[in-house]
Protein backbone atom coordinates (compact mmCIF):
# COMPACT_ATOMS: atom_id res chain seq x y z
CA UNK A 1 0.00 0.00 0.00
CA UNK A 2 2.68 2.37 0.97
CA UNK A 3 4.57 1.47 -2.26
CA UNK A 4 1.61 2.50 -4.37
CA UNK A 5 1.49 5.85 -2.64
CA UNK A 6 5.21 6.30 -3.23
CA UNK A 7 4.89 5.48 -6.95
CA UNK A 8 1.99 7.80 -7.48
CA UNK A 9 3.90 10.58 -5.84
CA UNK A 10 6.95 9.82 -7.97
CA UNK A 11 5.52 9.91 -11.49
CA UNK A 12 5.05 13.68 -11.70
CA UNK A 13 8.37 13.88 -9.89
CA UNK A 14 10.19 12.12 -12.76
CA UNK A 15 8.54 14.40 -15.29
CA UNK A 16 9.67 17.44 -13.36
CA UNK A 17 13.25 16.20 -13.17
CA UNK A 18 13.34 15.52 -16.92
CA UNK A 19 11.90 18.93 -17.68
CA UNK A 20 14.49 20.51 -15.45
CA UNK A 21 17.29 18.62 -17.19
CA UNK A 22 15.96 19.78 -20.54
CA UNK A 23 15.90 23.37 -19.41
CA UNK A 24 19.41 22.99 -18.12
CA UNK A 25 20.63 21.56 -21.43
CA UNK A 26 18.94 24.37 -23.31
CA UNK A 27 20.55 26.94 -21.02
CA UNK A 28 23.92 25.37 -21.62
CA UNK A 29 23.49 25.38 -25.40
CA UNK A 30 22.53 29.05 -25.36
CA UNK A 31 25.43 29.84 -23.07
CA UNK A 32 27.80 28.06 -25.44
CA UNK A 33 26.34 29.71 -28.55
CA UNK A 34 26.73 33.16 -27.01
CA UNK A 35 30.28 32.34 -25.98
CA UNK A 36 31.15 31.26 -29.53
CA UNK A 37 29.73 34.51 -30.89
CA UNK A 38 31.82 36.49 -28.44
CA UNK A 39 34.82 34.39 -29.40
CA UNK A 40 34.46 35.25 -33.10
CA UNK A 41 35.49 38.84 -32.55
CA UNK A 42 38.40 37.89 -30.34
CA UNK A 43 39.62 35.23 -32.77
CA UNK A 44 39.33 37.69 -35.65
CA UNK A 45 41.34 40.33 -33.81
CA UNK A 46 44.00 37.86 -32.79
CA UNK A 47 44.09 36.48 -36.35
CA UNK A 48 44.53 39.91 -37.87
CA UNK A 49 47.28 40.84 -35.45
CA UNK A 50 48.93 37.49 -36.07
CA UNK A 51 48.94 37.92 -39.84
CA UNK A 52 50.13 41.52 -39.52
CA UNK A 53 53.00 40.51 -37.31
CA UNK A 54 53.94 37.40 -39.30
CA UNK A 55 54.12 39.15 -42.67
CA UNK A 56 55.78 42.19 -41.11
CA UNK A 57 58.47 40.00 -39.59
CA UNK A 58 59.27 38.65 -43.05
CA UNK A 59 59.36 42.20 -44.34
CA UNK A 60 61.72 43.28 -41.58
CA UNK A 61 63.98 40.35 -42.43
CA UNK A 62 64.70 42.16 -45.70
CA UNK A 63 64.40 45.79 -44.64
CA UNK A 64 65.85 47.07 -41.40
CA UNK A 65 63.39 48.75 -39.04
CA UNK A 66 65.73 51.72 -39.01
CA UNK A 67 65.32 52.22 -42.73
CA UNK A 68 61.59 51.64 -42.48
CA UNK A 69 60.85 54.04 -39.63
CA UNK A 70 63.46 56.69 -40.37
CA UNK A 71 63.75 56.57 -44.14
CA UNK A 72 62.34 59.60 -45.90
CA UNK A 73 61.64 58.04 -49.27
CA UNK A 74 58.87 55.59 -50.06
CA UNK A 75 59.21 53.84 -53.43
CA UNK A 76 58.61 50.10 -53.08
CA UNK A 77 57.59 49.66 -56.74
CA UNK A 78 60.54 51.31 -58.44
CA UNK A 79 64.18 50.51 -58.63
CA UNK A 80 66.11 51.34 -56.60
CA UNK A 81 63.48 50.49 -53.99
CA UNK A 82 63.04 52.70 -50.94
CA UNK A 83 61.14 51.67 -47.84
CA UNK A 84 61.01 54.76 -45.62
CA UNK A 85 57.49 54.98 -44.17
CA UNK A 86 57.76 58.60 -43.02
CA UNK A 87 56.20 60.06 -46.19
CA UNK A 88 53.11 57.91 -45.62
CA UNK A 89 52.94 58.89 -41.93
CA UNK A 90 53.38 62.48 -42.99
CA UNK A 91 50.51 62.18 -45.47
CA UNK A 92 48.35 60.57 -42.81
CA UNK A 93 48.99 63.31 -40.30
CA UNK A 94 48.54 66.04 -42.87
CA UNK A 95 45.06 64.72 -43.59
CA UNK A 96 44.14 63.72 -40.02
CA UNK A 97 45.55 66.94 -38.52
CA UNK A 98 43.77 69.00 -41.13
CA UNK A 99 40.57 67.12 -40.37
CA UNK A 100 40.91 68.05 -36.69
CA UNK A 101 41.46 71.70 -37.61
CA UNK A 102 38.08 71.55 -39.36
CA UNK A 103 36.23 69.30 -36.94
CA UNK A 104 37.33 70.51 -33.49
CA UNK A 105 36.02 74.09 -33.62
CA UNK A 106 32.84 73.13 -35.45
CA UNK A 107 32.22 70.05 -33.31
CA UNK A 108 32.82 71.90 -30.04
CA UNK A 109 30.62 74.81 -31.06
CA UNK A 110 27.88 72.38 -32.08
CA UNK A 111 28.19 70.56 -28.75
CA UNK A 112 28.00 73.79 -26.75
CA UNK A 113 24.95 74.80 -28.74
CA UNK A 114 23.29 71.42 -28.23
CA UNK A 115 23.90 71.21 -24.49
CA UNK A 116 23.63 74.87 -23.40
CA UNK A 117 21.53 76.77 -25.91
CA UNK A 118 19.17 74.51 -27.86
CA UNK A 119 15.69 73.90 -26.50
CA UNK A 120 14.92 70.25 -25.76
CA UNK A 121 12.71 70.01 -28.85
CA UNK A 122 15.33 71.44 -31.19
CA UNK A 123 17.97 69.22 -29.63
CA UNK A 124 15.90 66.12 -30.29
CA UNK A 125 15.95 67.00 -33.99
CA UNK A 126 19.49 68.39 -34.27
CA UNK A 127 21.51 65.68 -32.59
CA UNK A 128 20.34 62.77 -34.77
CA UNK A 129 20.63 65.00 -37.86
CA UNK A 130 24.26 65.72 -37.04
CA UNK A 131 24.89 62.05 -36.49
CA UNK A 132 23.65 61.31 -40.00
CA UNK A 133 26.93 62.87 -41.20
CA UNK A 134 28.71 59.85 -39.78
CA UNK A 135 26.42 57.49 -41.68
CA UNK A 136 27.16 58.79 -45.19
CA UNK A 137 29.40 56.29 -47.02
CA UNK A 138 32.94 57.58 -47.14
CA UNK A 139 33.20 57.00 -50.89
CA UNK A 140 30.57 59.72 -51.25
CA UNK A 141 32.74 62.06 -49.18
CA UNK A 142 35.73 61.23 -51.36
CA UNK A 143 33.81 61.93 -54.53
CA UNK A 144 32.48 65.16 -53.02
CA UNK A 145 36.01 66.27 -52.18
CA UNK A 146 37.23 65.48 -55.68
CA UNK A 147 34.34 66.97 -57.67
CA UNK A 148 33.35 69.89 -55.43
CA UNK A 149 35.81 70.89 -52.70
CA UNK A 150 38.91 70.94 -54.90
CA UNK A 151 37.51 72.63 -58.04
CA UNK A 152 35.00 75.00 -56.41
CA UNK A 153 36.48 75.79 -52.98
CA UNK A 154 40.24 75.27 -53.00
CA UNK A 155 41.23 76.15 -56.56
CA UNK A 156 39.48 79.53 -56.64
CA UNK A 157 41.35 80.39 -53.44
CA UNK A 158 44.68 78.72 -54.27
CA UNK A 159 45.04 78.24 -58.03
CA UNK A 160 48.20 76.15 -57.63
CA UNK A 161 46.24 73.37 -55.84
CA UNK A 162 46.83 69.87 -57.26
CA UNK A 163 43.81 67.95 -58.56
CA UNK A 164 44.50 65.44 -55.81
CA UNK A 165 45.45 67.16 -52.57
CA UNK A 166 45.58 66.59 -48.84
CA UNK A 167 43.46 69.65 -48.04
CA UNK A 168 40.31 68.50 -49.79
CA UNK A 169 40.58 65.10 -48.10
CA UNK A 170 41.20 66.80 -44.74
CA UNK A 171 38.09 68.96 -45.15
CA UNK A 172 35.75 66.07 -45.93
CA UNK A 173 37.25 63.79 -43.29
CA UNK A 174 36.83 66.72 -40.88
CA UNK A 175 33.13 66.92 -41.73
CA UNK A 176 32.91 63.16 -41.34
CA UNK A 177 34.24 63.24 -37.76
CA UNK A 178 32.26 66.30 -36.59
CA UNK A 179 29.51 64.05 -35.17
CA UNK A 180 32.06 62.06 -33.16
CA UNK A 181 33.30 65.23 -31.51
CA UNK A 182 29.95 66.98 -31.11
CA UNK A 183 28.16 63.92 -29.79
CA UNK A 184 30.82 62.91 -27.26
CA UNK A 185 31.44 66.50 -26.13
CA UNK A 186 27.71 67.05 -25.76
CA UNK A 187 27.61 64.01 -23.47
CA UNK A 188 30.58 65.38 -21.53
CA UNK A 189 28.96 68.80 -21.16
CA UNK A 190 25.70 67.33 -20.00
CA UNK A 191 27.55 65.29 -17.38
CA UNK A 192 28.64 68.54 -15.72
CA UNK A 193 26.38 68.82 -12.68
CA UNK A 194 23.42 71.15 -12.99
CA UNK A 195 24.30 72.62 -9.60
CA UNK A 196 27.49 74.14 -11.06
CA UNK A 197 25.52 75.83 -13.82
CA UNK A 198 23.01 77.15 -11.30
CA UNK A 199 25.81 78.50 -9.14
CA UNK A 200 27.21 80.39 -12.11
CA UNK A 201 23.85 81.72 -13.29
CA UNK A 202 23.04 82.87 -9.76
CA UNK A 203 26.31 84.85 -9.83
CA UNK A 204 24.96 86.82 -12.77
CA UNK A 205 26.78 84.87 -15.46
CA UNK A 206 25.50 84.94 -19.03
CA UNK A 207 24.91 81.77 -21.01
CA UNK A 208 28.21 82.25 -22.82
CA UNK A 209 30.11 82.71 -19.54
CA UNK A 210 28.53 79.60 -18.09
CA UNK A 211 29.43 77.63 -21.22
CA UNK A 212 33.02 78.79 -21.57
CA UNK A 213 34.02 79.31 -17.93
CA UNK A 214 32.18 76.58 -16.06
CA UNK A 215 30.95 73.82 -18.36
CA UNK A 216 33.91 73.77 -20.72
CA UNK A 217 36.68 73.55 -18.06
CA UNK A 218 34.73 70.99 -16.04
CA UNK A 219 34.44 68.77 -19.12
CA UNK A 220 38.06 69.07 -20.30
CA UNK A 221 38.91 65.40 -20.06
CA UNK A 222 35.76 64.44 -21.95
CA UNK A 223 36.67 66.91 -24.68
CA UNK A 224 40.21 65.53 -24.95
CA UNK A 225 38.90 61.98 -25.17
CA UNK A 226 36.40 62.96 -27.88
CA UNK A 227 39.13 64.61 -29.93
CA UNK A 228 41.41 61.59 -29.61
CA UNK A 229 38.68 59.19 -30.68
CA UNK A 230 37.91 61.42 -33.65
CA UNK A 231 41.63 61.49 -34.47
CA UNK A 232 41.75 57.70 -34.45
CA UNK A 233 38.86 57.67 -36.93
CA UNK A 234 40.56 60.22 -39.14
CA UNK A 235 43.82 58.27 -39.18
CA UNK A 236 42.02 55.09 -40.15
CA UNK A 237 39.77 56.67 -42.78
CA UNK A 238 40.57 55.14 -46.20
CA UNK A 239 38.10 55.57 -49.02
CA UNK A 240 37.64 59.34 -49.02
CA UNK A 241 41.37 59.81 -48.62
CA UNK A 242 42.30 57.33 -51.34
CA UNK A 243 40.05 59.17 -53.78
CA UNK A 244 40.82 62.77 -52.86
CA UNK A 245 44.34 62.97 -51.45
CA UNK A 246 46.14 61.21 -54.24
CA UNK A 247 48.78 58.50 -54.47
CA UNK A 248 52.11 60.23 -54.33
CA UNK A 249 54.10 59.37 -51.21
CA UNK A 250 55.87 62.57 -50.36
CA UNK A 251 57.40 64.14 -47.28
CA UNK A 252 55.73 67.54 -47.37
CA UNK A 253 53.90 70.00 -45.15
CA UNK A 254 52.01 71.56 -48.03
CA UNK A 255 48.37 70.40 -47.87
CA UNK A 256 47.63 71.63 -51.39
CA UNK A 257 49.73 68.92 -53.01
CA UNK A 258 49.24 65.30 -53.86
CA UNK A 259 50.11 63.03 -50.90
CA UNK A 260 49.61 59.42 -49.95
CA UNK A 261 48.39 58.22 -46.57
CA UNK A 262 49.09 54.82 -45.07
CA UNK A 263 45.50 53.74 -45.66
CA UNK A 264 45.52 54.95 -49.25
CA UNK A 265 48.74 53.05 -49.88
CA UNK A 266 47.27 49.83 -48.48
CA UNK A 267 44.13 50.26 -50.59
CA UNK A 268 46.15 50.94 -53.73
CA UNK A 269 48.48 47.97 -53.26
CA UNK A 270 45.71 45.58 -52.27
CA UNK A 271 43.67 46.46 -55.37
CA UNK A 272 46.62 46.10 -57.71
CA UNK A 273 48.21 42.89 -58.96
CA UNK A 274 51.01 42.66 -56.43
CA UNK A 275 52.14 39.02 -56.30
CA UNK A 276 51.89 37.43 -52.84
CA UNK A 277 55.15 36.70 -51.07
CA UNK A 278 57.12 39.52 -52.71
CA UNK A 279 58.56 42.29 -50.62
CA UNK A 280 56.10 44.72 -52.19
CA UNK A 281 53.29 42.56 -50.91
CA UNK A 282 54.80 42.48 -47.46
CA UNK A 283 54.97 46.27 -47.29
CA UNK A 284 51.17 46.24 -47.03
CA UNK A 285 51.45 44.40 -43.74
CA UNK A 286 54.30 46.46 -42.39
CA UNK A 287 52.38 49.65 -43.11
CA UNK A 288 49.21 48.04 -41.76
CA UNK A 289 50.97 47.13 -38.52
CA UNK A 290 52.27 50.69 -38.15
CA UNK A 291 48.77 52.04 -38.72
CA UNK A 292 47.29 49.56 -36.29
CA UNK A 293 49.76 50.51 -33.56
CA UNK A 294 49.11 54.19 -34.08
CA UNK A 295 45.31 54.03 -33.95
CA UNK A 296 45.48 51.64 -31.03
CA UNK A 297 47.74 54.00 -29.10
CA UNK A 298 45.36 56.91 -29.72
CA UNK A 299 42.36 54.79 -28.71
CA UNK A 300 43.99 53.56 -25.53
CA UNK A 301 44.94 57.07 -24.48
CA UNK A 302 41.39 58.24 -25.24
CA UNK A 303 39.87 55.45 -23.15
CA UNK A 304 42.20 56.28 -20.28
CA UNK A 305 41.23 59.94 -20.36
CA UNK A 306 37.55 59.08 -20.65
CA UNK A 307 37.76 56.74 -17.68
CA UNK A 308 39.32 59.41 -15.52
CA UNK A 309 36.57 61.79 -16.55
CA UNK A 310 33.89 59.26 -15.56
CA UNK A 311 35.43 58.84 -12.14
CA UNK A 312 35.08 62.53 -11.47
CA UNK A 313 31.40 62.92 -12.23
CA UNK A 314 29.66 59.61 -11.65
Amino acid at each position, binding site marked *: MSDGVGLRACRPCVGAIMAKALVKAKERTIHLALFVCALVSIVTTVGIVWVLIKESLEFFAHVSPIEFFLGTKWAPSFFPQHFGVLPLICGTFLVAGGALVVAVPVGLAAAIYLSEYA*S*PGLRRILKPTLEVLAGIPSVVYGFFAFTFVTPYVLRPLFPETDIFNAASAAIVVGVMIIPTISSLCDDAFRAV*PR*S*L*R*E*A*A*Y*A*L*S*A*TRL*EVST*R*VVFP*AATSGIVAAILLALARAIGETMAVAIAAGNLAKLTANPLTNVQTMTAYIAQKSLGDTPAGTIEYQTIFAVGLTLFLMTMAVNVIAQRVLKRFREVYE
Partner: protein
Amino acid sequence: MVKVLESEAPARRVALDLPLVRIPDRGPQREHALPSSERVIRAEQLTIRYGTFAAVREVTLDIPSHRVTAIIGPSGCGKSTLLRAMNRMNDFVPSASVAGKLFFRGEDIYRPGFDPVELRRRIGMVFQKPNPFPKSIAKNVSWGAAINGYQGNLDDLVERALHQAALWDEVKDKLDDNAYTLSGGQQQRLCIARAIALQPEVLLMDEPCSALDPIATARIEDLIDQLKAQYTVVLVTHNMQQAARVSDRTAFMYMGELIEVDDTTVIFTKPTQKKTQDYITGRFG
Protein backbone atom coordinates in the same frame (compact mmCIF):
# COMPACT_ATOMS: atom_id res chain seq x y z
CA MET B 1 2.10 69.38 21.85
CA VAL B 2 5.12 71.64 21.68
CA LYS B 3 7.75 68.97 21.72
CA VAL B 4 8.66 69.60 18.09
CA LEU B 5 9.59 73.12 18.99
CA GLU B 6 11.94 72.33 21.83
CA SER B 7 15.42 72.54 20.42
CA GLU B 8 18.89 73.72 21.22
CA ALA B 9 18.35 77.15 19.78
CA PRO B 10 21.63 79.00 20.04
CA ALA B 11 20.84 82.53 19.01
CA ARG B 12 17.38 83.68 19.86
CA ARG B 13 14.36 81.84 20.93
CA VAL B 14 10.83 82.85 20.32
CA ALA B 15 8.34 82.18 23.07
CA LEU B 16 6.51 79.18 21.77
CA ASP B 17 3.55 78.81 24.09
CA LEU B 18 0.70 78.27 21.78
CA PRO B 19 -2.86 79.35 22.35
CA LEU B 20 -5.07 76.42 23.03
CA VAL B 21 -8.14 78.10 21.65
CA ARG B 22 -9.40 76.77 18.38
CA ILE B 23 -8.71 79.06 15.50
CA PRO B 24 -11.35 79.21 12.79
CA ASP B 25 -10.10 78.47 9.27
CA ARG B 26 -10.79 81.58 7.27
CA GLY B 27 -9.25 80.47 4.00
CA PRO B 28 -5.94 81.60 2.56
CA GLN B 29 -4.86 85.05 3.57
CA ARG B 30 -4.26 87.20 0.51
CA GLU B 31 -2.83 90.46 1.72
CA HIS B 32 -0.43 91.64 4.31
CA ALA B 33 0.99 94.71 2.71
CA LEU B 34 3.98 96.61 3.99
CA PRO B 35 4.56 100.28 3.27
CA SER B 36 6.32 100.48 -0.10
CA SER B 37 9.39 102.17 1.40
CA GLU B 38 10.13 99.09 3.49
CA ARG B 39 9.71 96.39 0.89
CA VAL B 40 12.38 95.22 -1.50
CA ILE B 41 10.50 92.48 -3.29
CA ARG B 42 6.78 92.21 -3.79
CA ALA B 43 4.90 89.33 -5.35
CA GLU B 44 1.45 90.23 -6.59
CA GLN B 45 -1.07 87.53 -7.43
CA LEU B 46 1.93 85.43 -8.50
CA THR B 47 1.14 82.05 -10.02
CA ILE B 48 3.91 79.72 -11.23
CA ARG B 49 3.07 76.64 -13.24
CA TYR B 50 5.13 73.65 -14.28
CA GLY B 51 3.24 72.62 -17.38
CA THR B 52 -0.34 72.68 -16.15
CA PHE B 53 0.47 72.11 -12.48
CA ALA B 54 0.36 75.30 -10.43
CA ALA B 55 3.18 75.04 -7.90
CA VAL B 56 2.55 78.57 -6.59
CA ARG B 57 -0.97 80.00 -6.66
CA GLU B 58 -1.85 83.67 -6.54
CA VAL B 59 0.66 84.53 -3.88
CA THR B 60 0.88 88.12 -2.73
CA LEU B 61 3.84 88.68 -0.46
CA ASP B 62 6.10 91.55 0.58
CA ILE B 63 9.74 91.03 1.50
CA PRO B 64 10.90 93.75 3.94
CA SER B 65 14.28 95.39 3.64
CA HIS B 66 17.13 94.32 5.97
CA ARG B 67 15.10 91.63 7.63
CA VAL B 68 15.21 87.87 7.48
CA THR B 69 12.02 86.53 5.96
CA ALA B 70 11.50 82.80 6.33
CA ILE B 71 9.23 80.85 4.02
CA ILE B 72 8.11 77.64 5.69
CA GLY B 73 5.79 74.84 4.73
CA PRO B 74 5.74 71.12 4.04
CA SER B 75 7.64 69.57 1.10
CA GLY B 76 6.12 70.42 -2.25
CA CYS B 77 4.27 73.48 -0.96
CA GLY B 78 5.93 75.74 -3.55
CA LYS B 79 8.31 77.59 -1.24
CA SER B 80 11.44 76.85 -3.28
CA THR B 81 9.62 77.64 -6.51
CA LEU B 82 8.58 81.01 -5.10
CA LEU B 83 12.14 81.73 -3.97
CA ARG B 84 13.64 80.76 -7.32
CA ALA B 85 11.17 83.04 -9.07
CA MET B 86 12.69 86.00 -7.23
CA ASN B 87 15.97 85.86 -9.17
CA ARG B 88 14.42 84.19 -12.20
CA MET B 89 16.25 80.90 -11.72
CA ASN B 90 13.05 79.19 -12.87
CA ASP B 91 13.89 80.47 -16.35
CA PHE B 92 16.01 77.34 -16.75
CA VAL B 93 13.07 75.01 -16.19
CA PRO B 94 11.64 74.77 -19.70
CA SER B 95 8.10 73.93 -18.55
CA ALA B 96 7.81 76.76 -16.00
CA SER B 97 5.50 79.67 -16.71
CA VAL B 98 4.68 82.72 -14.62
CA ALA B 99 1.47 84.74 -14.25
CA GLY B 100 0.96 87.74 -12.03
CA LYS B 101 3.65 90.18 -11.07
CA LEU B 102 6.91 90.09 -9.17
CA PHE B 103 8.48 93.43 -8.33
CA PHE B 104 12.07 94.11 -7.29
CA ARG B 105 12.44 97.70 -6.12
CA GLY B 106 9.22 98.57 -7.90
CA GLU B 107 10.23 97.06 -11.23
CA ASP B 108 8.39 94.06 -12.66
CA ILE B 109 11.13 91.50 -13.20
CA TYR B 110 8.97 89.38 -15.51
CA ARG B 111 8.18 92.19 -17.94
CA PRO B 112 9.45 91.58 -21.48
CA GLY B 113 12.92 92.95 -22.03
CA PHE B 114 13.95 92.82 -18.37
CA ASP B 115 17.56 91.66 -17.97
CA PRO B 116 17.73 88.68 -15.58
CA VAL B 117 21.56 88.68 -15.61
CA GLU B 118 21.67 92.15 -14.03
CA LEU B 119 18.92 91.11 -11.61
CA ARG B 120 21.02 88.18 -10.40
CA ARG B 121 23.90 90.52 -9.70
CA ARG B 122 21.66 92.37 -7.26
CA ILE B 123 19.92 89.28 -5.86
CA GLY B 124 22.31 86.56 -4.79
CA MET B 125 21.44 82.95 -4.06
CA VAL B 126 22.66 80.13 -1.86
CA PHE B 127 21.51 76.61 -2.72
CA GLN B 128 20.41 73.57 -0.79
CA LYS B 129 23.56 71.60 -1.39
CA PRO B 130 26.89 73.43 -1.29
CA ASN B 131 27.93 73.83 -4.93
CA PRO B 132 31.40 75.40 -5.08
CA PHE B 133 33.19 75.40 -8.42
CA PRO B 134 36.01 72.84 -8.82
CA LYS B 135 38.48 75.70 -8.44
CA SER B 136 40.53 77.22 -5.65
CA ILE B 137 38.86 78.81 -2.61
CA ALA B 138 39.96 82.29 -3.70
CA LYS B 139 38.81 81.76 -7.30
CA ASN B 140 35.41 80.62 -6.06
CA VAL B 141 34.90 83.84 -4.13
CA SER B 142 36.18 86.14 -6.85
CA TRP B 143 34.47 84.33 -9.75
CA GLY B 144 31.30 86.39 -9.83
CA ALA B 145 33.12 89.69 -9.41
CA ALA B 146 35.66 88.75 -12.09
CA ILE B 147 33.09 87.95 -14.76
CA ASN B 148 31.16 91.10 -13.90
CA GLY B 149 34.20 93.25 -14.62
CA TYR B 150 35.10 94.17 -11.04
CA GLN B 151 37.68 96.96 -11.09
CA GLY B 152 39.03 96.82 -7.51
CA ASN B 153 41.57 94.52 -5.91
CA LEU B 154 40.29 90.93 -6.05
CA ASP B 155 42.43 89.79 -3.09
CA ASP B 156 40.84 92.41 -0.83
CA LEU B 157 37.43 91.44 -2.09
CA VAL B 158 38.09 87.76 -1.33
CA GLU B 159 39.30 88.55 2.17
CA ARG B 160 36.35 90.83 2.90
CA ALA B 161 33.77 88.34 1.66
CA LEU B 162 35.37 85.45 3.56
CA HIS B 163 35.40 87.59 6.74
CA GLN B 164 31.73 88.36 6.30
CA ALA B 165 30.97 84.69 5.78
CA ALA B 166 32.91 83.84 8.97
CA LEU B 167 35.26 81.59 7.04
CA TRP B 168 38.42 83.66 6.79
CA ASP B 169 40.22 82.30 9.85
CA GLU B 170 39.70 78.72 8.70
CA VAL B 171 40.92 79.18 5.14
CA LYS B 172 43.30 82.14 5.15
CA ASP B 173 46.36 79.86 4.86
CA LYS B 174 45.00 77.75 2.02
CA LEU B 175 43.26 80.12 -0.33
CA ASP B 176 44.76 78.32 -3.32
CA ASP B 177 43.51 74.89 -2.27
CA ASN B 178 40.64 73.35 -4.18
CA ALA B 179 37.28 74.21 -2.63
CA TYR B 180 36.37 70.51 -2.57
CA THR B 181 38.91 69.98 0.21
CA LEU B 182 36.64 71.90 2.63
CA SER B 183 33.98 70.29 4.80
CA GLY B 184 30.32 70.56 3.85
CA GLY B 185 29.65 73.39 6.30
CA GLN B 186 32.74 75.27 5.16
CA GLN B 187 31.72 74.78 1.54
CA GLN B 188 28.32 76.27 2.28
CA ARG B 189 29.90 79.29 3.97
CA LEU B 190 32.17 79.57 0.93
CA CYS B 191 29.06 79.66 -1.25
CA ILE B 192 27.68 82.42 0.96
CA ALA B 193 30.98 84.31 0.65
CA ARG B 194 30.84 83.83 -3.11
CA ALA B 195 27.32 85.26 -3.21
CA ILE B 196 28.05 88.28 -1.00
CA ALA B 197 31.29 89.07 -2.85
CA LEU B 198 29.03 90.52 -5.55
CA GLN B 199 27.55 92.81 -2.88
CA PRO B 200 23.95 92.00 -3.71
CA GLU B 201 21.00 93.73 -2.10
CA VAL B 202 19.09 90.54 -1.42
CA LEU B 203 20.31 87.07 -0.50
CA LEU B 204 18.01 84.17 -1.32
CA MET B 205 18.74 81.02 0.65
CA ASP B 206 17.12 77.76 -0.38
CA GLU B 207 17.26 75.43 2.63
CA PRO B 208 20.95 76.27 3.08
CA CYS B 209 21.40 73.94 6.05
CA SER B 210 19.52 70.87 4.87
CA ALA B 211 22.73 69.06 3.91
CA LEU B 212 24.65 70.08 7.04
CA ASP B 213 25.19 68.72 10.52
CA PRO B 214 23.83 70.60 13.59
CA ILE B 215 27.08 72.41 14.41
CA ALA B 216 27.56 73.63 10.85
CA THR B 217 23.88 74.59 10.85
CA ALA B 218 24.30 76.67 14.01
CA ARG B 219 27.21 78.53 12.43
CA ILE B 220 25.23 79.33 9.30
CA GLU B 221 22.29 80.49 11.42
CA ASP B 222 24.55 82.85 13.38
CA LEU B 223 25.86 84.09 10.08
CA ILE B 224 22.36 84.74 8.70
CA ASP B 225 21.65 86.80 11.81
CA GLN B 226 24.70 88.97 11.10
CA LEU B 227 24.01 89.26 7.39
CA LYS B 228 20.72 91.06 7.78
CA ALA B 229 22.57 94.21 8.87
CA GLN B 230 23.69 94.59 5.28
CA TYR B 231 21.41 92.40 3.22
CA THR B 232 17.78 91.51 2.90
CA VAL B 233 17.55 87.77 3.43
CA VAL B 234 14.84 85.41 2.21
CA LEU B 235 15.25 81.97 3.73
CA VAL B 236 13.35 78.89 2.62
CA THR B 237 13.37 76.18 5.24
CA HIS B 238 11.39 73.11 6.16
CA ASN B 239 12.80 73.43 9.65
CA MET B 240 10.39 75.40 11.83
CA GLN B 241 12.85 75.78 14.67
CA GLN B 242 15.27 77.37 12.26
CA ALA B 243 12.63 79.80 11.05
CA ALA B 244 11.78 80.63 14.66
CA ARG B 245 15.44 81.13 15.55
CA VAL B 246 16.67 83.30 12.73
CA SER B 247 13.79 85.05 11.00
CA ASP B 248 11.99 88.30 11.70
CA ARG B 249 9.03 87.48 9.52
CA THR B 250 7.63 84.14 8.56
CA ALA B 251 5.45 83.18 5.63
CA PHE B 252 3.64 79.86 5.77
CA MET B 253 2.81 78.15 2.50
CA TYR B 254 0.67 75.11 1.92
CA MET B 255 -0.23 73.43 -1.38
CA GLY B 256 1.06 76.37 -3.41
CA GLU B 257 -0.88 78.98 -1.47
CA LEU B 258 0.40 81.53 0.97
CA ILE B 259 -1.64 80.78 4.07
CA GLU B 260 -0.30 83.38 6.42
CA VAL B 261 2.53 85.85 6.79
CA ASP B 262 3.41 87.93 9.83
CA ASP B 263 6.14 88.68 12.32
CA THR B 264 7.77 85.42 13.34
CA THR B 265 6.70 85.81 16.98
CA VAL B 266 3.10 86.23 15.89
CA ILE B 267 3.16 83.24 13.54
CA PHE B 268 4.59 81.01 16.22
CA THR B 269 2.43 82.27 19.09
CA LYS B 270 -0.80 83.64 17.71
CA PRO B 271 -1.36 82.29 14.22
CA THR B 272 -4.69 83.36 12.79
CA GLN B 273 -5.05 80.40 10.46
CA LYS B 274 -5.86 76.91 11.57
CA LYS B 275 -3.53 75.34 8.97
CA THR B 276 -0.63 77.39 10.31
CA GLN B 277 -1.34 76.29 13.83
CA ASP B 278 -1.62 72.66 12.75
CA TYR B 279 1.68 72.86 10.91
CA ILE B 280 3.72 74.58 13.60
CA THR B 281 2.39 72.25 16.24
CA GLY B 282 3.45 69.30 14.13
CA ARG B 283 0.05 67.93 13.27
CA PHE B 284 1.13 67.49 9.63
CA GLY B 285 4.00 68.13 7.31
